[in-house]
């Protein structure tokens, strides 16, 4: 079905569609995580509140425009559509997280740093290329760090342990598959 959603009532502005669930109590809730390179290329996006595809690209365009143009030494927060975006630059990458107005911006900076440190340990001095070719790994790590936009683990060691346990499971499955296909290949020879 096509057509615009319209609403003309009760003095509530019509941007309800752009903005997803808004928590009045200002509880710590990251709405989305965004990694953008200095050239404006998206390296990772994770949405914890529902946004349509169209809204997502709009958000990315708007934010990368603002963030990439901010000078150095300015504060790491921007106010955007009634939300706050906390960003931090690491080498050529900007890590951005969007939170509610009332949330603790300084803590989000720590969460970003926490994530970067874990990535760094996992890849061994991580660089942008690692995150491009192993983007799925970056996602896996993020999923061990945040669920529903909330932090789940404050120990870097535990995150690393859980990730490597899962990587091993994948490796084991691969080996098994190749040994089976070897057996099949030999049997059919």
């Amino acid at each position, binding site marked *: *079905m*096509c*057509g*615009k*959603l*319209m*609403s*003309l*009532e*009760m003095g*509530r502005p019509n941007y*309800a569609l752009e903005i997803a*669930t*808004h*928590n*009045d*109590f200002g*509880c*710590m809730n990251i709405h989305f995580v965004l990694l953008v390179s200095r050239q404006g290329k*998206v390296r*990772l*996006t*994770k949405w914890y509140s*529902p*946004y*349509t*595809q169209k809204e997502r*690209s709009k958000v990315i365009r708007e934010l990368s425009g603002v963030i990439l143009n901010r000078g150095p030494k*300015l*504060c790491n*927060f*921007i*106010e955007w559509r009634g939300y706050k975006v906390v960003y931090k630059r690491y080498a050529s990458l900007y890590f951005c997280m969007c939170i509610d107005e009332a949330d*603790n*911006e*300084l*803590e989000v*900076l*720590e*969460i970003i740093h*926490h994530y970067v440190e874990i990535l760094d340990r996992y890849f061994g001095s991580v660089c942008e290329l690692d995150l491009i*070719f192993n*983007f799925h790994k970056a*996602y*896996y790590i993020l*999923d061990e760090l945040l*669920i*529903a936009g*909330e*932090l*789940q*683990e*404050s*120990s870097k060691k*535990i995150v690393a342990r*859980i990730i490597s346990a*899962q990587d091993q*499971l*994948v490796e084991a*499955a691969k080996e098994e598959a190749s040994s089976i296909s070897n057996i099949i290949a030999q049997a059919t020879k």
Partner: protein
Amino acid sequence: MNPFSSGTRLRDMIRSIRACKTAAEERGVVRKECADIRASINENDPHDRHRNLAKLMFIHMLGYPTHFGQMECLKLIASPGFPEKRIGYLGLMLLLDERQEVLMLVTNSLKQDLNHTNQYVVGLALCALGNICSAEMARDLAPEVERLIQFRDPNIRKKAALCSTRIVRKVPDLAENFVNAASSLLKEKHHGVLITGVQLCYELCTINDEALEFFRKKCTEGLIKTLRDITNSSYQPEYDVAGITDPFLHIRLLKLLRVLGHGDADASDLMTDILAQVATKTESNKNAGNAVLYECVETIMAIEDTSSLRVLAINILGRFLSNRDNNIRYVALNMLMKAIAFDDQAVQRHRVTILECVKDPDASIRKRALELVSLLVNENNVKQLTKELIDYLEISDEDFKEDLSAKICSIVEKFSPEKLWYIDQMLKVLSEAGKFVKDDVWHALIVVISNASDLHGYTVRALYKAVLTYSEQETLVRVAIWCIGEYGDLLVNNVGMLGIEDPITVTECDAVDVIEDAITRHNSDMTTKAMALVALLKLSSRFPSTSERIKDIIVKQKGSLLLEMQQRAIEFNSIVDRHKNIRSSLVERMPVLDEATFNVRRAGSLPASVSTMAKPSVSIPNGVAAAPVVDLLDLDSDDILAPPSSSGADFLQDLLGVDLGSSSAQSGATQAPKAGTDLLMDILSIGTPSPAQNSTSSIDLLSTADVNSNPSFALETLSSPAPPHIATTASAGGMFDLLDGLSPSPSKEATNGPAYPPIVAYESSSLKIEFSFSKTPGNPQTTNVQATFINLSPNTFTDFVFQAAVPKFLQLHLDPASSNTLQASGNITQNLRVTNSQHGKKSLVMRMRIGYKVNGKDVLEEGQINNFPRGL
């Protein structure tokens, strides 16, 4: 591997995409890859699925459509191996969101995986559920998640806890099921589990009052102990961040204590000691420590009054404010805004520092500081603060001027001690940042000027001087033109000199120069030019010596490419030329604009028709001058074309919207019985510049009559200002005709249109919507729908908003609902008007979305209505 699949490896694809030099080239590569993936999907080979999905995720990240891969995610999740499931769940979270119906198909797989024997598979399922579950899935899977909170492995417990926060956010009714499990998590030693457990408790407390009471009674002391232990703990390398042991846990504990202490003196009392300890002992030279302090201050300010702690908190904020780190200063400004509520004096002490922050190079800090300054303003310091801000306005960045000038205007309007000061400050703002000032601000200024009769002379002279220097500030020019037009004689004769003024000599010619300038300057917009024409017309009568020159200027505008300008020029020319005898009364000074009405209109709290009906004496001035005055008021006639229902339109326009209606009605009325004179017709027609306006205004008239459902009242108010030339009875007859023919009468409706049965448009566990239908006779395309919202739950819904969308062949108009609060088992109604351009071919469909708050929590319901009766 299928030897015939032409697919490349993921790594190769990324490489070839990165090698692209142009966007077109990249699109080409992606298109080819997508085609390959589609082909591979159609072959349905399980070996390629893994790789296809990984590629699709990369393509998705670049912003290309990838919906065709959604089903592949589901297949991978359903397959037995861990690697397939891992990538499948990742794809699910990336490519889908909770609004897609495909997601429902995954519920069953999720249920199985939540019961899987491999804990990592359970972890994957919990993670996916926590990130994208919808309300329906939350309901279906809540029991599984609840059970997993008690799982033996801490990795699963923490995931289940966060998954539960999402579930209770989506379905607040489920909160009570989780209370016990959540409280058991608070006793954990594992930091991850503790962090997520505290988060879950926090969530439950904010959703459910009983849960809050429960945790307050049972857990406050335990939490305080946990916080004390963690604060006093020795160095733990695993959790240490810049000398603080697990700042994340600190922050979550402080946050939970905040809700427990808020509104409860006993609980607040218990936590005083530990809060004081955190506030004094936390290292503040690194970000992690400051994050903890920030949270601690926030908690101190939210819990019940413990004034010694608050002094401590304000001191911390003072330290933050003088920090060199911009981040810290930013949060300090933010927190001081909250601190004003309980200690205005303490915040006032930092006023100088805060004012400095308004001038910071960082836009975020400037914005915060400006907000804070506007909260600090009171009657005593308004003059000083305004002066500071206006001084800064002169040198500030262009892109900050808009915010800054808006703030200054609102401060000045709110706290101005006297009119003279107000006018002075506004003139300064308009001179410095006139092009950024919003319409309602300069409209308000005009209203104030019009009311300050003793300052007319002073104002017009000050404006004259300002406009000579700042002629590029559009709104300044507009106000100046308006004032010169109205009070030109005071300008020239130095009438009403104030002691503070230096006398100036302005000739009649100079005054006309200014206005001619505004008309001829190429970058003036149409509103300014149109206002300038009106001002000239007024001056032509006030300054007889310039009459010929003004006539020339007006004649020149007859050739304007702008229809509005051309029309005004022709009309005004004919007034100047042919109707000298009535000109002076036509261009009389505007009656004083009513401030109260303007403020009401500006706030937009009343529908247009009601307020103007209530104050006809204001909107329709006396005597022959009625129509022209209406027109002179018409500053923004181009905007009038907008439908009258676009509320929030400003006072002047609204005045006009209805006034035009009355004048056109009068002209219509006089035409029928041929009672009025031609001259009068001529004057009246000025009030109705274009046919389009005419039609909107008659609609307006109609709706006015509708609202009153008493034509004689409308008649009375409309005909009372009618010029004595018109026989009142004649126009009355005309009015009756007019109204009779147009207004819908309910009795006809009942007999004419076929009856449509009401339908239940939507029903959920908490809400039912019924639609009843009626048609307006003679207009089969349009259906009036009365929607009735019935609350089936025991809770009150607040901020209730109904939104609807229709396909292009339909047009939808929503009236405001009868209320935005829906009492338990109560109901409210809202009228909708749907126009079906394909009437008889297609029937109505509608998609709708309802948002409201229950116990402060947002709830969203959506649905599609397909069961409209046929033939609507």
